[in-house]
Each structure stands twice: as C-alpha cells, then as structure tokens.
C-alpha cells in the first residue's frame, strides 16, 4: 500500500443556504479543493452524503457532482455511513490512492438539510437508527441520545449544567471561524435556559440542522510536493462498527465502534493518545463528546465531562477539541461534517488555523460518528 497525503482543501460556509442547492454547494467545495491543489480534474470523486434522497430527492449524487464540477466521465461514487459519511468518503479515497487504483482523488462531504420542514429532517435522520425497531416506534435520534445522557448522568452523578463547557468552548471557537454557522458565544445561563428537544437534551446540547460541503484532494505522498509545499500525511484511516440498535448493546455507556476505530488508527501509527495535539471529535450532542473522549482514551470512563470541566479542551488546553467550532457551532450538515473535520485538521497542521491556530501542532486526530455510535471513522493526520 502507498502512503497517502492531502494536497488541497476546500469548504463552503455552513448555514441555511436558501439561495444555494445541493449541487451548488458540492461543486463549490470540490472546485475549491482542486484549486487549492492547483488541479483541474481528479481521477476519481467519492461523495460522502447521508440522505440526499430523502432531503433533496436526489440520489446518484456522485454522478451529478462529477458532471456539474466539470469532469463527467471519471469514476464517481457516493459513500454512505450515516453522519460519518464525509469521513467515510475520505476513508474510501485513501484506500483508492493507497491501493494504486487512482492517483488524484477528491473526497467531498455534503448535505443540504434546510429544504424540508423539521419533522421531515427528524424522520430522515432517524433512518440511521434501526428502521424497524427504533424509528418505526417514533424513536428520534435526539431521543436515543437523551436516553443515553440520562443514564450517564445517573451512573456518574452529573447534572445538565456539567455539560456546558462543551458548548461554551465550541461557540468560542466558532466566533473566529469565517465558515462557522454560529459565530457567537453562549453563557452557562443560555445553556441552562435552552428549551428541551428530548429531556435532558436541549437545543444547545444539540448540533444544528444546516447545509454545507467540504472537500479534500488526495494523492500518493511521494508526489505530494509537486502540487503543494504543505502536504499533510494521512497517518491512519480506520472504520469500525457496533450494533445498529442502542438497546441490544452489552455496555450502553461505551462507544465500541469509536474505541475500535480509534485504536486501529493508533496501531497504524504507533502513536499513543497523549501524542495527539488536537482532536476534532463528533460533538453532535454533548453526551457524544463525553463518550468520544472516553472511547478514544483521552479520559477515563465517566470522566469525559470532568475532562471538559477541567478546561483541557480549550485551544490552549491539554487536548483542544472542535477547534473551529465543531458540529455544535461550526454546524453539522450531517454527511459533510466528517469532511469538515478533516479540512479543519489539515488547516491546523498547515498553520492555517487563523485566530484558532493550535500552537506547534504536528499530529491531529479527527473522528466522525454515525448512527447511535454504530459506526465510527477515525483519521490521524500529521506533518
């Protein structure tokens, strides 16, 4: 297998893009990443997307984006792994280049969510759960996470207020990210007074419904410097799965897929968690942030919330997370989020983090989670 590097990145702002369609956003991010790499045309395009069929009545999405990006004819496939679709597309692109099948590959993550009313979006997102034994019973994604958050609070003795640092930090970081959806701070009082979506999860525990696309260009590492002076190596790329349903899991408060994919990634690099300089984690809900920190072995079990309370997650902390606002405040266009994480990690490692630059970083980790933590994709990047 060949070593693979990222040679270009591109992203659209995340938000409610009333004036821009699915194809507009996908083409913009794809062309931006290609321009960053100084390229006109890739050999292949992998599109990470979760629910364009339900939200935009458009499948065959990779063909559409290859066509409208200006290169019909190339190999183009849609990759779906629920909310981890964007990261899964990067994983497939990495495999395509590592295997020698292709040299220049674009992975773009995209989602256009705001064309539908909220009940339609809620139903579409619930398709990542077990359709027959969760969604058909009216179980929403927020409800699944709420069941878990309540269990976690009762097991480890936390209150809702204890989860506030995740949200406050994400919003602080988003203020200085020009691509972020919520460029405003929130206070502990805002968090406590936020209306409930599914108790104990409030609106401010949750990432927003929004639109966006982000893309990266990959090539063999030995060719990377002919395209850019600042290539970023993909040191590890690993996916793992767990049971599709939450209820059958032996250990409800353990993200097995996240643990497995993180540890496969650690093994691929020989790195230990303490050698990771920052972590773009999947903060779809505050409870997911806590359990992700535990699954990737940055915090002991039950200590994910404590880890945030002790200020380790700030830009200057022991392990900065969500450095450009995360899913919470940059926004969570579901199938795109995994690709945004990779774009943001590349920017950090290139020293392009702007006001949010993590000082002296050389190794960054991104983990995207799909379903009720039933699939996880982890990448470790380095310079």
């Amino acid at each position, binding site marked *: 297998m060949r070593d693979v590097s990222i040679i270009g990145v591109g992203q659209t702002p995340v938000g409610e893009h009333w004036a821009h369609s699915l194809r507009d956003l996908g083409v913009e991010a794809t062309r931006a990443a290609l321009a960053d790499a100084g390229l006109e045309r890739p050999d292949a395009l992998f599109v990470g997307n979760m629910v364009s069929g339900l939200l935009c009545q458009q499948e065959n999405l990779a063909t559409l984006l290859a066509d409208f990006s200006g290169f019909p004819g190339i190999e183009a496939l849609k990759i779906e792994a629920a909310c981890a679709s964007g990261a899964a597309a990067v994983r497939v692109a990495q495999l395509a280049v590592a295997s020698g099948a292709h040299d220049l590959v674009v992975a773009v993550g995209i989602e256009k969510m705001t064309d539908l009313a909220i009940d339609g979006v809620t139903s579409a997102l619930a398709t990542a759960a077990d359709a027959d034994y969760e969604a058909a*019973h*009216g*179980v929403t994604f*927020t409800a699944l996470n709420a*069941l878990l958050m309540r*269990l976690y609070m009762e097991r480890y003795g936390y209150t809702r207020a204890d989860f506030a640092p995740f949200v406050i930090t994400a919003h602080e970081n988003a203020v200085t990210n020009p691509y972020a959806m919520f460029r405003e701070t929130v206070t502990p009082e805002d968090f406590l007074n936020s209306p*409930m979506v599914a108790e104990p999860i409030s609106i401010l525990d949750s990432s927003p419904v929004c639109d966006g696309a982000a893309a990266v260009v990959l090539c063999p590492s030995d060719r990377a410097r002919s395209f850019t002076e600042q290539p970023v190596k993909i040191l590890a790329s690993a996916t793992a799965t767990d049971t599709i349903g*939450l*209820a059958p899991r032996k250990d409800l408060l353990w993200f097995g897929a996240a643990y497995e994919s993180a540890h496969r990634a650690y093994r691929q690099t020989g790195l230990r968690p303490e050698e990771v300089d920052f972590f773009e984690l999947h903060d779809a809900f505050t409870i997911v942030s806590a359990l992700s920190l535990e699954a990737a072995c940055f915090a002991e079990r039950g200590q994910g919330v404590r880890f945030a309370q002790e200020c380790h997650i700030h830009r200057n902390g022991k392990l900065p997370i969500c450095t450009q606002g995360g899913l919470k405040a940059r926004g969570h266009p579901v199938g795109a989020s995994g690709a945004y994480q990779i774009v943001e990690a590349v920017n950090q490692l290139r020293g392009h983090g702007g006001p949010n630059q993590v000082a002296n970083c050389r190794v960054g980790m991104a983990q995207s989670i799909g379903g009720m933590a039933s699939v996880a994709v982890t990448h470790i990047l380095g310079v």
Partner: protein
Amino acid sequence: MELPRYHRLRSTFYRLQASRCAACQATYFPPRPYCLHCGSRNLEELRLSGRGRVLSLTRVYQPSRGFSDGVGTLTALIELPEGLRLIAQLTDVEPAEVETGQEVEMVVRRLRTDEEQGLIVYGYKFRPVVGARAAEGANSA
C-alpha cells in the same frame, strides 16, 4: 405506507417475538439469523413475557413525521426479565408520574397513522404495572 413491511413485522410488533440460540441459549430482540455469541445459525423462536422495567426515559418535544401527536410523550429504554432490552413509547401514563425503575408491561397500541392513506400501524408500547397486576408481578418474581 409500506404495507408488506408491517405485515412482516407482525410477530415482533404484536407478540414481542424474540430468538434464542439452540446451541448456547443466548437470546436476542430483535430476533437474529446468526448467534453473535457462538456463531450458530440454529436460532429458535422465543416469546417474551411482555414485562419490563424502565432503565432510562426521555420526554420528546420534536417528534418524527407521522408522530406529531407524540409531542411531549415518553420514550423509554426498557430492561426485560429475559435479559434483553428494547426501546419503546410509554402509554397510559402522565409524564410526571414515571421514574426510572418503573415496572411496565407491553400492550399493543397505534404507533402512527399514515398521513396520505389513513392506514394505521399498530405495535408494542409499554404501560406502568399498577395495583393488583403489580402485586401479581411481585409475587411471581
């Protein structure tokens, strides 16, 4: 409305049919074709008692399409005496009246009504076990 789909699901939705591995006795809900524990594909039908206990619950304010009359209703993670868990809606209860640990029993209720054709999907929900039925459950346990 996906009629064949709900027809296929009638044994689990109306009777809580689970499966048990004939080789190692591991039990599963929903039923599975292969045993996760020993790999056997010799799984037999197992009818669950329909009793359970609330392990976690949430009051839902933003329901899925087709469940709009479910605003403010309770979704619960339920532990079954057979060593299984499932997630279902609670019914016949005021949200303020239920806590984790509540003993519940399965009933068949309307899950949702198809918006276009008016067809009704029925399936399991759980309600609190109260009064004589609670005492009966306690005696048998």
